[in-house]
C-alpha cells in the first residue's frame, strides 16, 4: 500500500484541527439552548453561522480530498491544483473566521437573501463573507474541473458515466469510484455556478441597490445548498465503493444497475431541492410536487443499489473488521437512517408541521455526522494505516465505536424527539411556548461531548497508526 500523500495528510490535519473545534461550537449552541450559558448567549447566532459554514465546507472538502486521493489509482489529478484548492480553502476559512468572530456576521450558513444585508452587523463583514465564498468557490471550482479533466484524459464522457453498461457492455471497465465522481463533480460545478449567481446578485444589491426577487434567490440558494450537501454524501459513498471491497476481499464493480442508478442520481439531485421551498406557497405548485417526487425517487438508488450492494458485499464475506471497515459499515447505516428522516420530511403534508423544527437538523446531522463523517474518517484511517504490518490491537476500538455511536445517536435522538414536539430550529433561547426544548438541548450537549471524546480518541489512534506505518519500511 502506498504511502499517504502529503496533500491528503494536510487535509487530514485540517479535519483533525477544525472538526473538534466545530463540534465544540455545536456543543456551545446546545448548551446555550439549555439555558446554561446566559452570559454568552449573544454569540449564539454568529457561532451558529460559523458552525454551519464550517461543517458544510469541511465535509465537502474532506470527502473530495478522499476522492481525489482515491482517483490517483486510475487517473492523474494535478497536484498543483490540489494544493491550490487546499490553500484557497485555508484562506477562505480564515476570512470566514474574521467576518464572524470580528464582524459578528450571523446570517446562518445558507445566507438567505436579504438577511445578510439586514442583520445589524457591519457591512464590511457581509462583504468579507461574500469575498470568502468567492475565494472558496473559485478554489473548489478549479479543483472540480481538474478532477474532471483528469478523468477525461482516460475516459470519454460516455464511459465515465458508464453508459456502455446500460447498453449491456462491460468493457471498458469503469470503477464505481470514477462513475460516482464524474456524476458528483458535474453537479458540483452546477452548484458552484448557482452560488456565483447568488453572490453576483448580492453584490448588485449592495453596490447598486438593485433588489432581486426573493423567491428566485431562495431557489438559487437552496439549489446550491442542497446539491453541494448531497454530492458530499455521494463522494463519501464513492470512496466506500472503492475501499470497502478491500476489507471484504470481494469486488464491487460497476454493472448495469449501478450505472442506471448513478445516472438517475445525476438528474434527480438537481430537481429534489424544491423540497426546501414547500412552505413558500408562492412557489408554483407543480414544482412542489416535482420536489416531493424527486426526493422520494432519490432514495431508491441510494437504498436499493448502494446500501443493498454494500450489505451484499459484506454478507458472509471474510470481512476484516477493524476501525476503518467498521466506520465504513456504520457510516452506511447512518446514511440510511438519515435518508429515512429526510424522505419523511420531504413529504409536503408532513413538512407542513416539521419544516424548520429541529427535525431538519436531525436528519442532516444523521447522514452527515453518522454517515459521511464516519465514511470519510474511515478512508483517512485506511490511508493512515497504510501497509501496516500488524493488525490493530487493543480494546480501544470498542470504546471508540461505543462512544461515537452512543454519543452520536443519542445526540440525534434528541433532535428527532424535539422536532416531533414542534421545537423550532435556530433558536438561541426557547421561549415559554417551547421551553421544554431546553431539556433536550442539554441532553444533546452531553451526548455530543461523548461523541467528541470518541472522535478525539479515534484521531489519536489514527495519528498513532500513521506514525507506526510511516516509520515501518513499506
Amino acid at each position, binding site marked *: *500500500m*502506498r504511502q499517504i500523500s502529503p496533500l491528503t495528510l494536510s487535509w487530514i490535519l485540517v479535519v483533525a484541527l477544525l472538526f473538534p473545534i466545530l463540534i465544540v461550537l455545536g456543543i456551545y449552541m446546545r448548551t446555550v439552548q439549555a439555558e446554561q450559558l446566559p452570559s454568552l448567549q449573544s454569540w449564539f447566532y454568529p457561532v451558529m453561522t460559523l458552525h454551519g459554514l464550517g461543517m458544510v465546507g469541511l465535509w465537502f472538502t474532506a470527502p473530495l480530498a478522499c476522492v481525489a486521493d482515491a482517483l*490517483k*489509482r*486510475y*487517473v492523474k489529478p494535478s497536484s498543483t491544483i490540489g494544493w491550490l484548492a487546499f490553500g484557497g480553502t485555508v484562506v477562505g476559512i480564515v476570512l470566514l473566521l474574521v467576518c464572524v468572530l470580528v464582524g459578528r456576521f450571523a446570517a446562518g450558513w445558507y445566507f438567505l437573501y436579504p438577511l445578510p444585508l439586514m442583520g445589524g452587523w457591519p457591512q464590511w463583514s457581509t462583504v468579507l463573507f461574500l469575498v470568502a465564498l468567492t475565494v472558496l468557490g473559485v478554489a473548489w471550482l478549479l479543483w472540480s*474541473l481538474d478532477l*474532471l*479533466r483528469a478523468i*477525461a*484524459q*482516460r*475516459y*470519454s*464522457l460516455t*464511459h*465515465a458515466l458508464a453508459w456502455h453498461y446500460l447498453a449491456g457492455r462491460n*468493457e*471498458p*471497465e*469503469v*470503477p464505481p469510484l470514477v462513475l460516482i465522481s*464524474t456524476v458528483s*463533480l*458535474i*453537479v458540483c*460545478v*452546477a452548484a458552484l*455556478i*448557482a452560488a456565483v*449567481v447568488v453572490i453576483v*446578485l448580492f453584490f*448588485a444589491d449592495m453596490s447598486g*441597490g*438593485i*433588489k*432581486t*426577487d426573493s*423567491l*428566485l434567490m431562495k*431557489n*438559487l440558494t437552496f*439549489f*446550491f445548498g442542497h446539491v453541494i450537501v448531497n454530492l458530499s454524501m455521494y463522494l463519501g459513498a464513492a470512496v466506500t465503493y472503492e475501499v470497502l471491497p*478491500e*476489507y471484504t*476481499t470481494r*469486488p464491487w464493480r460497476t454493472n448495469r444497475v449501478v450505472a442506471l442508478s448513478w445516472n438517475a442520481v445525476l438528474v434527480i439531485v438537481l430537481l429534489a431541492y424544491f423540497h426546501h421551498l414547500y412552505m413558500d*406557497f*408562492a412557489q*408554483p*405548485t*407543480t414544482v412542489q410536487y416535482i420536489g416531493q417526487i424527486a426526493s422520494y425517487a432519490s432514495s431508491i438508488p441510494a437504498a436499493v443499489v448502494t446500501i443493498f450492494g454494500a450489505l451484499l458485499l459484506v454478507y458472509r464475506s471474510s470481512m*476484516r473488521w*477493524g*476501525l476503518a*471497515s467498521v466506520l465504513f459499515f456504520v457510516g452506511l447505516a447512518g446514511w440510511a437512517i438519515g435518508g429515512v428522516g429526510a424522505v419523511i420530511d420531504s413529504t409536503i403534508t408532513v413538512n407542513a408541521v416539521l419544516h424548520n423544527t429541529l427535525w431538519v437538523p436531525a436528519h442532516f446531522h444523521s447522514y452527515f455526522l453518522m454517515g459521511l463523517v464516519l465514511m470519510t474518517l474511515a478512508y483517512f484511517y485506511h490511508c493512515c494505516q497504510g*501497509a501496516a504490518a500488524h*493488525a*490493530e490491537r487493543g480494546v480501544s476500538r470498542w470504546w471508540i465505536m461505543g462512544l461515537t455511536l452512543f454519543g452520536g445517536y443519542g445526540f440525534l435522538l434528541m433532535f428527532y424527539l424535539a422536532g416531533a414536539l414542534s421545537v423550532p430550529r435556530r433558536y438561541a433561547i426557547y421561549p415559554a411556548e417551547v421551553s421544554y426544548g431546553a431539556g433536550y438541548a442539554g441532553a444533546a450537549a452531553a451526548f455530543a461531548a461523548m461523541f467528541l471524546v470518541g472522535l478525539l480518541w479515534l484521531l489519536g489512534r489514527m495519528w498513532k497508526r500513521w506514525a507506526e506505518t510511516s516509520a515501518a519500511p513499506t
Partner: protein
Amino acid sequence: MVARSDVEALGGDIGCAHVSRSLSAASRLLAAALLSGAALACAASTSSSTFREEARLIDHRLPDIELSLGDGRIAHLSSLWREQPLLLTLFYRRCTGTCVPSLLVIRDEIARTRQAPEFRALGLSFADSDTAEDMRAQAQALALEHDPRWLFAVASPPDVKRLADALGFWFRRDLTSEQYDHPTLIVGIVQGRIVRALLGYPISNEDLRELIWELRGRFVPYYQLPGQLRLRCFEYDGRTGRVRPDWGLLLLLAPGTIAMVIAGTVFTVGARARSGGAARRVAEPLLRLRPGVHKPSA
C-alpha cells in the same frame, strides 16, 4: 367574532397581488405552474387612497335584491351570483359622462378574454327613471343584446339604495342638468361576496383584467418592491393565456445547463488529448490492488 369596527373590509389586494381561487383538477396543474402575469405592469396604478377604498370593499357580503332584467325576466341578484361569478357595474341610461365609455371598456376587455369567461357581467342602473325597456335599449346600443354573458337590469329605488350602501356607492342628482354625479365602480362578486373592486375613471385595463382573473380564480401572489429587479420564473399573460418564461427561469436553469456544457467541453478536450482520439482500452488500473491480494491488516 373578529375584532373589528363596524365598517370593516376584510382585506384586499396588496398592490399588485391578487386574490383568486385556483382552477379545478387538470387546469390546476397548469395554473399552478404559472405565476399569473396580469399584475406585471402594475406598479401602483392606483393612488393609495383609492386603493384603500377598494380594499375596504373586499369580502363584503351584498344584499340580495330583486332585478328587472332587460329581456323582461325578473331575477334575484343571488340567483345570478349563485350560478356564476358576477362582474357588476352601476350606470344609468341617460348618462352623458363616464357610464357608456366605462361599459365599452368592460365590454371590450371581456371580449378579448379568449377562453370561456366563466362569469357574467351585469350593468345595473341606479336611476329611478330607468326602466327595463331602457336596459334592453342599452344592451342594443352596445351590441350586447344577444350576448348571453351580459345582463342589464333595474331595481326598485329602496333596493338600489340598499345595494349602493353596501357597495359604498354614492350618486347625487344634479337638478339643473338632470344628470347624476357618481363614481365609476366595478365589483367582482363570487357567491355574494366582493372579491375585487375597481374605483375610478379612467379604468385601467390591467386592473380590469386582474378583476376578471379574480372572478375566474387565478391568484397572483406577488407584488413589486421598490428597486426590485423583476426576475421571476414565469409570467402569465392573462389575456392570451400564454406562459412566458422570464429571466428568472433562465438564471435558475443556467447552473445545471452550464455544468453539462462544461463537462462536455472538458471531456471533448480530454478526448483530443488521448492518443489519436481512439478509445484506449482501459488497461490494468494504474495502482489498483488486484483481486485476491489481501490487505495486510485492518
